[in-house]
């Protein structure tokens, strides 16, 4: 075991898989010589060579398309899209090709591509470096979509994603790369050293895709969330003095509704929190499924806390971010309802 931040954990996952399987190749903008703008691929081209860690042209559609071709020819490409906000030129290749290849060829062809991409705000990225597009991919049948909230899950989920024969969109909340974030930008940044999930095995292990995790047990209310908001929700509940059970969704597709619903049936109250824009967001799917499974156990309407339905503004980042104040207000509201 070692203490790792999320960048080191992701790097360790890639290193572990490249050592185990010569079919694993990395590609993306700045991932080779430089080691990636966030340093996730640092040192890997030196270690595994230029044929296995490819610096790519600035063409996300081309990166995903060529990754598909490589995947069809027996490689296991891990493509980095430098920011999730840059993924849209590749959208047709992801939706119409990567996600549909197995289906349209009745299982004859498939491309085991993992697309890693940093998402979320809180780094002064403005509207083009802060988006959380998980709902956009969750809506596409044929894709798996995951978002880890800590170094341990990041490494274990990335190894699972690389080994998966289905395509996986792997969203990395970049605000968590260097430490957990509790929603207070004015507070000093915390390292992963003090967090139990900062302890990461050096070698190979998997966190299976398709399973949520109860990040914190509690009896009064369930907070269903993922990514950066797991930590923000935890801090908010603590501040409010409410014993919340926090379910870290981790795997958006396939969704582990059992873990989520059994928590809500236990507490009888629920809020859903995500950083992405609320309207049409993945929270809507969560709420729909939770009420369907838990309606007769609910003491209060399920509330959503999400980014406002605007782009992510540079100057008003923390007003946009669904931080502790909004979470606490929602918690109080569902606690008061009876």
């Amino acid at each position: 075991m070692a203490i790792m931040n999320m960048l080191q954990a992701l790097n360790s996952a890639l290193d572990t898989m490249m050592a185990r399987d010569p079919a694993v190749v990395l590609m993306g903008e700045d991932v080779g010589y430089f080691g990636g703008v966030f340093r996730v691929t640092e040192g890997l081209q030196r270690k595994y060579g230029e044929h296995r860690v490819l610096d790519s042209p600035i063409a996300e559609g081309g990166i995903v398309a060529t990754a598909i071709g490589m995947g069809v020819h027996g490689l296991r490409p891990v493509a980095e899209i430098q920011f999730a906000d840059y993924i849209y030129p590749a959208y047709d290749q992801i939706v119409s090709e990567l996600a549909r290849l197995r289906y349209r060829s009745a299982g004859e062809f498939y491309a085991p591509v993992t697309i890693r991409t940093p998402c979320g705000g809180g780094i002064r990225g403005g509207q083009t470096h802060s988006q959380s597009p998980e709902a956009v991919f969750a809506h596409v049948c044929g894709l798996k979509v995951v978002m880890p909230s800590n170094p341990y899950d990041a490494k274990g989920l990335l190894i699972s994603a690389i080994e998966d024969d289905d395509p996986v969109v792997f969203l990395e909340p970049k605000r968590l790369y260097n430490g957990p974030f509790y929603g207070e930008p004015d507070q000093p940044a915390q390292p992963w050293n003090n967090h139990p999930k900062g302890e990461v095995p050096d070698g190979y292990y998997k966190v299976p895709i398709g399973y949520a995790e109860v990040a914190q047990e509690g009896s009064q209310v369930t907070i269903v969330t993922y990514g950066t908001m797991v930590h923000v929700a935890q801090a908010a509940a603590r501040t409010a003095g409410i014993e919340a059970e926090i379910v870290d969704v981790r795997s958006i597709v396939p969704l582990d509704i059992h873990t989520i619903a059994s928590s809500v049936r236990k507490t009888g109250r629920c809020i859903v929190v995500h950083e992405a824009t609320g309207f049409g967001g993945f929270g809507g799917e969560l709420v729909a499924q939770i009420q369907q499974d838990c309606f007769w156990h609910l003491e209060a309407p399920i509330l959503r806390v999400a980014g406002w339905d605007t782009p992510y503004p540079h100057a008003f980042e923390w007003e946009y971010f669904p931080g502790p104040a909004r979470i606490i207000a929602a918690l109080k509201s569902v606690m008061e309802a009876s």
Partner: protein
Amino acid sequence: MTPKSRLHVPKAHARPGETPDFSYVQISPAGAVARPDINAPAADIADLANSMVRVLDEDHRAVGPWHPHLDAGELQIGLRHMLLTRLYDNRMQRMQRQGKISFYMRAYGEEAVSVAQCMALRPSDMLFPAYRNQGLQITRGRPLVVLMCQVLSNTRDMCKGRQLPVLYHWKEGNLFSQSGNLATQFPQAVGWAMAAAIKGEDRLAASWLGEGSTAEADFHYALLFAAVYQAPVILNVTNNQWAISTFQGFAGGEQRSFAARGNGYGVPGIRVDGNDFLATYAVTTWAAERARNGFGPTLIELVTYRGGAHSTSDDPSRYRPKDDYERWPLGDPIERLKQHLIRLGEWTEERHAQLAEELEAHVTDSWKEAITYGTMTDGPRLESGTMFEDVFKDMPEHLKIQQAQLRALRG
């Protein structure tokens, strides 16, 4: 006079009621274009993009440096594959008109593109076709019954009823799954070729799209990645002049040839008479040797003409002159190869008629068998619960639930 800017709107050479005028098609005399060494740098052979490689002359002789010297037996095989493609297409079109299938797209007039190019490649080479490349399937020996079952979406459909007619795949035959979205396969072929190079294989990838689809970003991704990594890939633009009703000028063909798109990327672009079986074969062989010997990608523009409608869903008399194809200066690929073989003393009109009869009977027999596995109107049908398979490798729980719901609904 005050200078003014000007918006240019391309005009088709002729629309219904007008006289076709193909003077815009630059045609080199047969044998006139030099054949460079396979290791020639792209910059030294840029002119290949502006001329037109042709082997068959007006008297049906094979002339010049691109003459591939195929023996008569191979030419007869090529003729057979092209003719079978055409007869298969014609039958499927008729079956669509009779309501037996929902949709069809013929390769009428472009048969040499798929057949000659496929014959110039090895069976181990991976092909990423567009929707008018059924000749690749036929040349690689796919039984017609299998193709027909796909078109029928019946119980033997390779796609299990999930794809529109003509969107085939064949893993064993190294033919990639066809997409209904245009041009997406082009950069995928480059990725496949990059993987072949990473593995140190001598296999190459080839892909096709229409001149209209060169407008898509995927075309440019393909050329860029092919150039950057010098991938062993052959990128083919089938310039059949028409994208449904939109003529090639709206894909930028008025200003430069489509082959010339390669030059900007440092990828040799070569323009060939796509209705000349021998020239198409020779150019593809040249590009394949380049790829296999580490000299990288080639962009080939195959100049041809879409002799029929885009698909069974459009009527070309609404947007082009009725006699357009009759006046097309590069003729018909089957007729030209036939005349060449006759001139060689290796074919006769009688043998041709006999072959057509034999292939027609083969199409009939195949159709009779295919419909026993189901049609749109008559059973047997695929079990609809199979629609939930292959979304993922292993069916996740939510799909199992939906599958059970559908089956319960059906009783």
